[in-house]
Structure formats: C-alpha cells, structure tokens
C-alpha cells in the first residue's frame, strides 16, 4: 500500500514535467465578436458573416426585438457592435450616450400599404382614414415628413398605435385602412393578396436611410481593428446576400422563421449596404433635425463625433 502511494505521488509530481512533451500546444481560442442584430430581414447580413470573417475570429449574433434594446446593448457593452435603425442611435447620442455610428447596414425596408380593394391610391387618400403607425419608429419620422410634403399633417389622418408585427394582421382584419410598415409586413400583405403599396416613402431629404452599424466609443478607442474588421465583413456579406437573393430568403426563413413568400416579396424593398457615404451622413443629420422638430429628442447629438466614418472610408479605399 505504501509503495503504491509513493508511486502515485511520484507519478503525480513528474507528470507536469513530462506531459508537455506529449501534449500538443493548445491552439489560441478565436476572438469572438458579439454582434447585436434585429429580428428583421433588413438585419440579416450578420448571419452571413461566418463566410467572410478571417481566421482567428468568430461572430456571436445576439438578436433583439426592438432598436432601443439593440442600442442599449451597445451602450452597456453587452455586444461589441449592433445594427439597428438610425433613430435609436440618434436617440442615444442625443442623450449623450457613447454610441457612435460607424457604417451603414440597410436602406429602404419601409412602405405605406393599403388594402388592395380600397380606393386609397396616394398619400392624399389617407385623409380621415385609420393608419397604423408605430410611435417613435423610423417609419413615423418618414411618414410625418411625407405628409408635410403633401400639405397634410398627422391631424389629417387617424393614427392607430400598432406594432410592426401586428400591422399586416390589422390590415387583413380591416381594423385599419392602411399602415406604415417595416418589411416583411408589406411583403406579407402583398403575397397574401390583401394589400397594395401606396408608396415607398423615400422622396424626403432623408432618402431611404434606415439601419446603421454602431459601437461604443470605448470599443472604437480600444479595439479599432475590430471596427474595421466588422465593416469589411459587412461589405462582403451584404454584397454576397444582395447578389444571392435565394440564399438571403433561405437565411431569413431559417434564422428568423419568416414566411418564404413574404420575404421573397420584400426583397426589392431591402438594400443591404455597409458604407457610411457622405450622402448618408447628410441624411442622418437631416433625420436628427426632424427628430428634434418632432420633440422626440431634446437636443441634437454632437454631430462631429456621433458619426465616425474612419473605418468605412478606410475599407472603401482598400476595397
């Protein structure tokens, strides 16, 4: 017994000295980038990142229900980067939160939809009608501006407070005459034969600006290489998804569980992108001004620091 104990002790002590000769050195674990995304077709690009991310990195996608949740995840550093509507980023920056826009993610994705059998053909026909709008959304800012351009205001319609996911159902049931929705709601209304597009509200000075990529100020200061990497990956992934619509539909159906017909009908209204172009910067500034006038924010964000195009410009130069 005593001999056995000694033998065990000796083996135990010798093991750490001998083992390294036989054990292969462990490979360094890949750097995991946490990416917040919304459960929308506009936010599908990160699910393609795996194909383009360089060796030594991996991406963990954390889905969020609302843009505000995505923005808060960036501010609290629960994620390294997030993609959400420009409105959420402006709301945060206006409250002096350290959220910085570093790239584009998706333009378009909105539509004004009416029942197919209704006499609503233009925005002016919405006068006196029940129109579903989600307060505080990008779509609300766009429709208010479009109404203003038509010489109307919110008082000329009957706004009904409905979330995006309920809008197609509300239109089908006849609870509302029209809605200002986000894809794939309009796609669902089109594919089911219930709805028709009244207009895509992109004729305002805000263009079709919708979703961006944002990061915490500290992330950009401490790990700028990650910011460049994520913008470059977004460039490849968005270009791939846009040139392979079937795969984009399949990915959206597989990852977000949406109806295939609705997603397919939404495709022509979704423009995945990556670069924060000077035009988009200009549109974002107009957007912030609109939000201020609507009293959704109390002050403009610091526009000199709120948008940082360094990484997007750098990728554009080397692309």
């Amino acid at each position: 017994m005593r001999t056995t104990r000694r033998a065990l002790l000796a083996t135990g002590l010798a093991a750490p000295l001998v083992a390294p000769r036989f054990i292969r050195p462990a490979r360094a674990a890949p750097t995991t980038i946490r990416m917040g995304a919304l459960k929308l077709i506009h936010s599908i690009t990160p699910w393609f990142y795996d194909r383009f991310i360089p060796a030594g990195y991996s991406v963990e996608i954390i889905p969020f229900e609302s843009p505000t949740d995505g923005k808060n995840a960036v501010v609290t550093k629960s994620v390294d980067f997030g993609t959400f509507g420009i409105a959420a980023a402006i709301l945060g920056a206006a409250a002096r939160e350290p959220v910085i826009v570093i790239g584009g993610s998706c333009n378009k994705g909105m539509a004004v939809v009416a029942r197919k059998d209704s006499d609503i053909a233009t925005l002016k026909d919405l006068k006196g009608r029940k129109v579903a709008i989600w307060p505080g959304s990008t779509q609300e800012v766009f429709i208010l501006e479009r109404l203003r351009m038509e010489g109307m205001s919110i008082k000329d319609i009957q706004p009904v407070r409905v979330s995006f996911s309920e809008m197609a159902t509300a239109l089908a049931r006849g609870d509302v005459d029209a809605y200002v929705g986000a894809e794939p709601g309009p796609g669902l209304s089109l594919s089911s034969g219930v709805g028709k597009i009244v207009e895509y509200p992109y004729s305002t000075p805000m263009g079709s600006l919708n979703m961006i990529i944002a990061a915490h100020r500290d992330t950009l200061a401490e790990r700028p290489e990650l910011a460049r990497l994520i913008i470059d990956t977004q460039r490849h992934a968005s270009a791939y998804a846009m040139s392979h619509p079937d795969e984009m539909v399949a990915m959206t159906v597989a990852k977000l569980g949406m109806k295939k017909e609705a997603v397919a009908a939404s495709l022509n209204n979704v423009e995945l992108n990556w670069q924060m172009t000077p035009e988009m910067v200009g549109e974002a500034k107009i957007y912030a001004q609109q939000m201020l006038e609507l009293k959704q924010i109390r002050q403009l964000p610091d526009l000199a620091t709120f948008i940082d195009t360094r990484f997007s410009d750098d990728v554009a130069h080397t692309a």
Partner: protein
Amino acid sequence: MTAPAQARNRALLATAIPVVCLLAWWLGTRDNPYSLIPPPRDVAVALWDLAFGGIYDDAFSGTLATHLLASASRVYGAFLLAALFALPLGMLIGHLRLARDLLDPMFQLLRPVPVTAWLPLSMIIFGIGPTAAFFLVALGAFYPILVNTVFGVRSVEPRLFEAAAMLGVRPAAMFPKVVLPAAMPGIFTGLRLGLGFAWVVIVVGEMTGVQTGLGAMIMDARQLSRTEIVIAGMIVIGIAGYLSDRAVQALGARLLRWSPQHG
C-alpha cells in the same frame, strides 16, 4: 405606546427601505455624464411634466390623467368581468363534484399559459383596439379569483355543516347559509389578488393597439429611450395598484368583520 406613536412608527418602518433604495439610486446615478438609468430628479421632473405639462412640451406632457383614466377603466372593467365569471365558476367547481371533474382539469391546463402568450391570439380574435387589452387584463385577474374561490368553498369546516344541520338548516339552504359566508375570506383574498394581477398585466394588455393607457405610454417611452418616463409610469402603476388594494382591503375588513382573519 399611544396609537399615533404606533402609526408614526409603522410609517417610519414602511418608508425605511424605499428611502435607502432611493438614496442608493441617487448615489449610483449622480455625476454620471450619461446613464441609461436616469437619476431620481429626472424621474421626478418627468412625473411632474407628465401630470401637469409645462416643462418639455412634448408628446408626453400633461397626458398622465388621460393615460391613468384609460388604464384604470380597463383594470376595473376587466376585473369586474373576471369576477363575474370566476366567482360562480369557482363556487360551482368547489361545491359540485361534476363541475370539478368537468372544468377543473381544463382550467389547470390553461392557467400556466402566460398573458403575453395570449397577446397575438387576442389581437386576431378581438382585433386591434381596447377589446383585446380588456380581454388580456381580465384573463390575468380571472385565475387568482377562481382558484381562491374554489379553495374558499372547499375548505369550509365539515363541523359547520353538522352544527347548521343541528340548528335546523335544510340541505338546500346549506350553500347560501353556510358555504358562502364561510368561503368569503377565501373569496376576498382571490378578489384582492385578482385586482393586483389586473394592474400587473396592464402593460402587456396595452402594449399594442391602443392609443392611451399607462402601458401604451411606457411602451412608447421605451421605444423613444425615455427611461425616466418608463420609471414614472412604473411609479404611477405602483401607487394606483396600492390604492386599489387598500380599497379592497377596507371593503373586506368591513364586510368580514365577523372573521378572525379579516375583521
């Protein structure tokens, strides 16, 4: 100790923990250049602006009364609707074996389904609007009333039946004269819990489809990153729920003066 001194001590004890929490909240949020959780002062200002307006002049200013009235009407209306169904059903299930075998398994199966899970279905059945919100709040209040009524009816002391029979109460009169009064404490507990749950689920009920209500206000504020209004809404719901509970408690104490637990 005199009665006023006792009341003062009780008030001091009741406010001690909230004051400590308030102090910790203030310490944790003061001097921050930004904070996702606003300091208490911002919430107080938001609450004032919600109630009286005149500070921010935005979509929320001066709207508290409208939202509170909308929510209170839904809470009390839905609570009454829930009580209308839950009380007779609970008495039936508690008193009759056949009703218990027929209904109890179904209700026990449906009871764990959260109100949030009913939201999409209620939108489809009742449409966009206050009816769906009304249904969801009533559903939240229904089960606590039902379960406590069943419990109250079933836990009547068997000796009471013997005593009543000896005093000449006929079998047909046992339910109104013995069961119902003896079950009242349980029923009141159910009503109290039901009204509390109605306030709990009001935010879910008003999440979508209605223009006014504290739940709608909180969801809109969340969308706009106005956390100070979210917290102000929470405080208002807490106070309204507390006052409702005190009212039911006072009513119970008055009607159940004979009961050693409630009188």
